[in-house]
């Protein structure tokens, strides 16, 4: 027997999916930025692959967080309409726009739920000191991990 979702559960599931895909969009943006950094060495040490301060994450990661915040705020702005710009619009169109804005806000919320901890993690890990280099065979250092050995 198939389990049928109640109207409230269906609404919650849709909201969860919207937030989740908002987070996925941010993860994809981060991946694209990293892919670009890897495949375009000439772009390294140039904006957005620079840091605002040496202890902070790359601008590219901060921008990803900023995009999510902008999406959420845009959705919130249309939904709340503080400047009453939607007053003159047709009621039906207005309702559709508010529904879209609600979705956009939740999408942006999902992006924030991904990018805020991602930025926190990146900052913490970036500031963790690495062990001092030791001879091969004693400690595997960053330098060692940066090499790749392919058995031919």
């Amino acid at each position, binding site marked *: 027997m198939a389990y049928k979702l109640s109207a409230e559960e269906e609404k919650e599931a849709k909201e*969860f999916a919207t*937030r*989740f895909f908002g*987070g*996925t969009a*941010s*993860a*994809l943006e*981060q*991946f694209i930025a*990293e*892919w670009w950094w*890897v495949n375009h060495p000439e772009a390294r040490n140039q904006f957005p692959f620079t840091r605002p301060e040496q202890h902070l994450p790359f601008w590219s990661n901060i921008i990803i967080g900023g995009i999510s915040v902008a999406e959420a705020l845009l959705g*919130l702005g249309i*939904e*709340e309409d503080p400047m009453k710009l939607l007053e003159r619009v047709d009621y039906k169109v207005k309702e559709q726009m*508010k529904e879209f804005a609600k979705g956009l*806000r939740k999408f942006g*919320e*999902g992006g*924030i*739920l*991904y990018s*805020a*901890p*991602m930025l*926190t*993690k990146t900052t*913490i*890990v970036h500031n*963790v*000191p*690495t*062990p001092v280099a030791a001879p*091969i*065979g004693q*400690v*595997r*250092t*960053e330098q*060692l*991990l*940066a*090499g*790749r*050995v*392919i*058995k*031919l």
Partner: protein
Amino acid sequence: MNMVTQKETEEFFIRLAGALTGGLEDAGLEGYQKSTGMRTFPFNQLNPKIPFCDDLIVGGLAIPPWVIGYLMEEDARKKGDMKAMEFGKNLEMFGEGDVIYALNMLIHHELCLLMEPQIFAPAIKVVSVPTDMSRADVGHKVTKF
């Protein structure tokens, strides 16, 4: 009239707290790995095509609060216990935030591994100590990044 209620704002912050918990778990594990250079469990891969075990653990830790919260809420709803229902709902939202972060982090890591495995998961194969019969530079290609 405010369209976004106080309740929705509170719900967002509960989800954000859940997501930040996931982020801090991840940071703790990765920070420990970075400071020690450890490459044994949980900082290894079960398969070169899947993310590191520490990332999978962070993903796995996100699921229990979500499921327990949902079950608790359902149980309390049947019993009519409003206080337990509220707690279950909050726990579910906390887990939801953690799931949104952790699963997307795994998606990101998986994409990195599939697209650029040589960069994002450098194979940890230490060249054996050369003896008279073998030379590390023969039969190997060493690429320094």
